[in-house]
């Protein structure tokens, strides 16, 4: 977590500079980001994992799908019986575990960002419409929201992905298509507040259409909140994919998905616990990175610096 004094001090400094503020909001935000430990750690880990995903073919020592039956279930190199050419050991088919873990980051990141983007599109569209137009549209959107919240999300995600036919695209579409309530709730209330402000009235006065107002007045002002939710939803989507793949209804073998690797390692976990521990740690690392970043972004973009 952050030290409590930092954002508060930053906020106080913003206040002190008062009317003659020498910094643009963007500069203030950047300065807060640099002094926010949680944000920096999260962003750092995420950057490293994105680099790993991008460079996987060059840094992975082996092909993640290449099986070697003579080198099955090797422990990590530092354990007895481990070999240095297989740094993190091999799985039940003799595939290099490190290579599979490195490639696995691609699946998790693709699904995390893909699903969060789709959810963002649905949730923000509904939220902005409900907040801007109000009345019947708002009631209708609210009803859809109530129904969506009542659905057993994970179960329906599993059912739809498996019954449609599990593939990367289907997983992204179903997770994204069912995870948008958070965007909706926040953009709706933010839009409701913004549409009463003078600059929206001014825009209406000069004859802007609702679409123009939404695009040029409302969205730029809810952007920060949307980014915060996006970051947190990336983590939620990654966890959902991992659970799906673990239960056998998500990404299918032999694709290296971290959740699937845990499922495959489960049968040997009593004498090869690393098979289960390592992919789990990878998921944990990625999700905590996005969560720290999301929480940090919320702190640095909030007007008062925190909460």
């Amino acid at each position, binding site marked *: 977590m952050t030290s409590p004094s930092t954002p508060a001090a930053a906020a106080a400094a913003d206040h002190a500079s008062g009317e003659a503020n020498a910094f643009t909001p963007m500069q203030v935000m950047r300065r807060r980001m640099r002094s926010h430990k949680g944000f920096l750690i999260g962003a750092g880990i995420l950057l490293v994992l994105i680099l790993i995903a991008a460079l996987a073919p060059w840094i992975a020592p082996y092909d993640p799908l290449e099986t070697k039956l003579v080198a099955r279930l090797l422990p990590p190199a530092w354990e007895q019986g481990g070999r240095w050419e297989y740094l993190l050991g091999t799985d039940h088919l003799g595939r290099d575990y490190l290579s599979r873990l490195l490639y696995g980051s691609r699946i998790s990141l693709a699904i995390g960002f893909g699903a969060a983007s789709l959810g963002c599109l649905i949730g923000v569209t509904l939220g902005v419409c409900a907040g801007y137009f109000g009345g019947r549209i708002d009631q209708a959107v609210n009803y859809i929201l109530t129904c969506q919240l009542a659905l057993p999300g994970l179960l329906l995600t599993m059912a739809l992905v498996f019954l*449609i036919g599990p593939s990367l695209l289907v997983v992204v579409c179903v997770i994204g298509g069912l995870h948008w309530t958070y965007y909706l709730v926040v953009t709706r209330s933010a839009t409701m507040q913004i549409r009463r402000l003078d600059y929206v009235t001014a825009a209406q006065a000069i004859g802007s259409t609702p679409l123009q107002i939404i695009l040029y007045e409302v969205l730029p002002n809810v952007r920060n909140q949307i980014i915060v939710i996006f970051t947190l939803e990336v983590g939620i989507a990654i966890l959902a994919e991992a659970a799906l793949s673990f239960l056998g209804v998500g990404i299918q073998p032999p694709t290296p998905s971290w959740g699937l690797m845990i499922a495959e390692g489960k049968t040997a*976990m009593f004498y090869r616990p690393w098979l289960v521990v390592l992919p789990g740690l990878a998921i944990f690392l990625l999700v905590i990175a996005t969560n720290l970043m999301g929480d940090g972004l919320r702190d640095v973009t909030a007007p008062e610096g925190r909460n």
Partner: protein
Amino acid sequence: MLRYALKRLVLALLVALSVSVATFALLSFATDPARAIAGEDADPLVIEQIRERYGLDRPLPVQYGAWIGGLVRGDLGESYHWKRPVSELIATHAPVTIKLALMSIFVTIVIALPLGIIAALRPNTLIDRAALSTAVAAQAIPSFWLGLIFIILFAVKLRLFPVSGDGTTWHFVLPCIVLGASSVPAVMRLTRTGLLEVLGSDYIRTARSKGFRGLRLLLRHALRNAMLPVVSVLAIQLGHKLGGSVIVESVFAINGLGRLALQSILGGDIPTLQMLVFVFALTFVLLTLLSDLLNGWLDPRLRLG
């Protein structure tokens, strides 16, 4: 109060009904049950026969009408996979899941409330930050993985608990901790922020100036109001646990509704799946209704809204 309750009940039933329509449409879009029953590469003629036999050749609205008509008469349909009435399947699997969900929510309360209260009483201290950091970390742990780690550590290495199954109450300890822990961050944070807000309010200052302090102030004045949002979120979390027990049930081989749901997904058993989604949604809606009524009773201001 009665008017308020009735209005909410009608809305709840309407929501459950809409959800069932949506599920029906989504599942029909996702798969062809006749193909699932017939098997991978069945003769098209056989598939056509099955379609006729189960009435799958009728238009969707008619099928839905038949489904909801049966539901009203208490006929929940028959499972394609187990060839048994769905009502029987749900009745035999439900008790285990209900027990699991209730015990888990108990675990959540026992961990989250004290942590949240302590964090709120000592804001920005080491304890507070430790509690918040734990919450951030806990949210990033995949629950199926935590379950497996628990099995390796507590069941295999230390031999404290059974590895899997649902025979005795001992079998439920590890799954309940895993399932309960997943709600701890949300409930803890809400308790903390709610209590912090209340502790800063005027009426607490008044109570303090009148000489109330310590536990008495906390229990009699502060917690009552701080608990309102926590009650709602606990109801929601209990609903999620009933519908979200699928992961924990399959990790620990507990034969409840979650596993039934997973098996019906894998077996393409649409009637069971459809009914399970409906039952979970209905339970969720009724639980939120219950918490709304409870809150309306605790806080009369809400009834006007």
